[in-house]
């Protein structure tokens, strides 16, 4: 007898439908799975056999063939346990579904017949909604996550017996309710925790407003990490669409906390500098999201920037430009969203004390030259804001005013972003993402501002590239001041956030 159960797998972070076909015929007892299954799927035969037996159901002593269609995509992981088991029970007529609507099943089996959670459930729920499949059976622990998608009925299943009885119409279950919102970041805090560093805080405010990438240069212990960690607290909340995207990514990576839920916080990812290329961009033969995708719609903080492997840093270039990352593998290419704000930090020299008031730097000029050359020009070109974060003496810290609270900064940014959104009428974009055409269109200058800009370029020996960056920053500063025109003051302020352009910095070599 033949039975068919609908299930799903993950391609990158998107769900893809998989038909599980089970055929039972007479013959020498055997159990074969075909259709590009990986190791975890092959092993599911043992789990299924034990689970069915331990649920006191009959495992047919016949010739069992399972096909996972379409046969050309690779099936990974243990999520097919439950659909295959159901297929076997349906083919051997232990189950006669009373349910009339089509349904979709995913779940991993334990040997005792209980059902364990799987990754990427929200993507599968989105998929089944798109395919008009109104009912989903998912592991109980995933059920509130799947229920986040309106328009489909989700049943959370605790064990094999439960779903068998439900399908046979012996018991009733009530559909799951959507999960609450959840937090994914470990650290939080408030901008008012940071004393002093006013200029750096202002620069981060501008960055948050225009989605500009930032690099902070400063000695160890100057507070670069503390500043970066508090950046999510001033970013405007995720829109509904963004939240769903983030949740999908975290769900498919298996990073949602137990019980799942919708992510309402902007991600903050801070991978260590020993990270591999695959860890950063996503990898393995069936690609999983890497750090840059996990930072989607949030912040990617790279501490000790020059210590990262060269290939890892270079791989950031494409996503920094397009906001997505395409990974090509033998079985096709997969697109991951990766629109993040890069916040990098580095020491001013390998030992970290160049320019410090107290400690002498022990690096040779050659070492310093080499340290800086680790960051390639193309990467630096994509970083609009470059600031210095010096270590403050206790004395300075004591005299500094307590900082402004995140909440009031966030309010200002929200307003400025609305101002931006109003300007970029066709689809919402940020100043940081403006290309040369937008720059020409939206950064018009009055003659007097233009001549000031020319004077600045001459005086500080700026390149054509940094000229563009300067304009972008000035645009964001003007937005924060809710000004339609770029004013003189905006340009004058912007130049202070471009330290690596400035010649004084080169004096470090003497």
């Amino acid at each position, binding site marked *: 007898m033949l039975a068919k159960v609908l299930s799903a797998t993950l391609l990158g972070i998107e769900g893809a439908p998989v038909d599980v076909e089970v055929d039972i015929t007479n013959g020498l007892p055997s159990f074969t799975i075909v259709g590009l299954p990986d190791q975890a799927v092959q092993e599911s035969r043992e789990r299924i056999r034990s689970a069915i037996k331990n649920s006191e159901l009959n495992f047919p002593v016949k010739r069992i063939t399972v096909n996972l269609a379409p046969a050309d995509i690779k099936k990974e992981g243990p999520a097919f346990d439950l659909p295959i088991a159901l297929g076997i029970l349906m083919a051997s007529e232990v189950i006669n579904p009373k349910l009339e609507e089509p349904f979709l099943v995913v779940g991993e089996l334990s040997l005792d017949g209980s059902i364990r959670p799987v990754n990427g459930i929200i993507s599968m729920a989105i998929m089944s909604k798109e395919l008009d499949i109104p009912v989903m059976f998912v592991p109980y622990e995933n059920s509130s996550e799947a229920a986040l998608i309106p328009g489909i009925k989700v049943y959370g299943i605790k064990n094999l017996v439960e779903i068998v009885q439900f399908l046979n119409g012996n018991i009733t279950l009530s559909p799951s309710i959507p999960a609450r919102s959840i937090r994914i970041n470990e650290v939080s805090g408030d901008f008012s925790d940071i004393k002093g560093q*006013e200029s750096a805080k202002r620069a981060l405010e501008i960055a948050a407003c225009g989605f500009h990438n930032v690099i902070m240069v400063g000695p160890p212990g100057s507070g670069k990490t503390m500043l970066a960690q508090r950046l999510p607290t001033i970013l405007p909340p995720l829109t509904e669409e963004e939240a769903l995207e983030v949740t999908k990514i975290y769900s498919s990576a298996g990073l949602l906390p137990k019980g799942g839920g919708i992510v309402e916080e902007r991600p903050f990812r801070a991978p260590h500098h020993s990270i591999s290329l695959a860890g950063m961009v996503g990898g393995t033969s069936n690609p999983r999201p890497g750090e840059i995708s996990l930072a989607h719609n949030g912040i990617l903080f790279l501490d000790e920037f020059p210590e990262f492997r060269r290939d890892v840093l270079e791989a950031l270039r494409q996503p920094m430009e397009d906001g997505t990352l395409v990974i090509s593998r033998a079985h096709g290419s997969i697109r991951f969203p990766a629109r993040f704000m890069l916040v990098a930090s580095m020491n001013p020299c390998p030992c970290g004390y160049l320019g410090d*008031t107290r400690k002498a730097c022990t690096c040779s*000029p050659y070492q310093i030259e080499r340290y800086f050359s680790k960051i390639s020009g193309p990467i630096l070109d994509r970083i609009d804001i470059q600031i210095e974060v*010096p270590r403050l003496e206790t004395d*300075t810290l004591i*005299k*500094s005013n307590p900082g402004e609270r995140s909440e009031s900064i966030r309010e200002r940014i929200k307003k400025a972003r609305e101002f931006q959104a109003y300007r970029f009428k066709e689809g919402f974009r940020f100043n940081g993402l403006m290309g040369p055409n937008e720059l020409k269109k939206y950064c018009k200058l009055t003659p007097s501002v233009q001549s000031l800009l020319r004077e600045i370029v001459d005086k500080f020996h700026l390149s054509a590239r940094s000229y563009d960056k300067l304009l972008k920053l000035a645009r964001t*500063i003007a937005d924060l001041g809710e000004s339609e025109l770029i004013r003189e003051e905006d340009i004058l302020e912007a130049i*202070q956030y471009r330290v690596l352009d400035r010649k004084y910095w080169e004096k470090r070599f003497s």
Partner: protein
Amino acid sequence: MGEEIFLIDWLLLNLTGRYRQIKELFSRGYSTEDIISFLGLEKERVLSLRKRAEEEYKRSLDLGIQLIPLSSDDYPVLLREITDPPALLYVLGEKVWLKGNFISVVGTRKPTRYGINATRMIVSRLVENGIGIVSGFAYGIDAVAHMEAIKGGGYTIGVLGTGIDIVYPKVNRSLRRDIIESKRGCLISEFPIGDSPEPWHFPRRNRIISGLTQITLVIEASLKSGAMITAGYALEQGREVFAVPGNIDSENSQGTNQLIKEGAKLITSGDDVLEEFNIIPKVTTIRPPELTEEEAVIWNILNEPRLEDDILNISGLDVSRFNIIITRLELRGLIERSPGRILKRRDG
């Protein structure tokens, strides 16, 4: 022809490295031939040295290097007075030591910001008043001293620890070009053309630095540093040692503080040095900049170099406004910044 043979003799003498005896014999009025024979070298050695000397001579012509033997009127007078002056100097650039007063400025290769600022401050003041700078062409204090001298339109001499044609340290390549092309400075060396930077060259080179001038000024040096060796030579040669004091907890100031303790003159400004040369310092015109009210607030706070955060706190301005005013002052060339977000007035 006579000139050529004469220079080759001196090149030969220089290659023997027996400076003490050569100086002794030369000062008694012996000719180069006599000096060579008095040195008691084996015949074969003299022959091989002569061959090398002839090659050196040819290469010096090819590379445009000037050769100044001990006997030349162009040889630095003060250097000739020491007990072991080089028998011959290789020179690239202008022989600027003929043009006035010089002072040697030496210090660590790894200066703090304080050391760099002090060097700039003192050197620019000296150069402004016509005093040239001798230093060791290393990086750190040496490089800053040379650069500041060139920037101020003054004279400078770099004493190398390598052959005159070797670019060392590599990061000083542009400084090397600046010195030679400015026509206001030169590089000199006692080492044969093409000699690589060997560790023992540098202490030896230091005796020339101190030997070229009456005064050696030490800015930032740890207790065991090349600058302290130079100071030691200066005392041996009967010259004077000046030093810039520093924090007692700063390793880079332990050497200079030690020198002061032992009697070196304590220097806190360029004018302290000028006094010694009996030069009455030029009065620098204190610019009365026309400033807006806000600009004046910041200008007045900047009576010494300060950290941005400190200025901000004192001024009570809001960051955005503050950054705007800073740029304005920078644009007008009234203030400048250094790494570590330090701002200071541009010295008038």
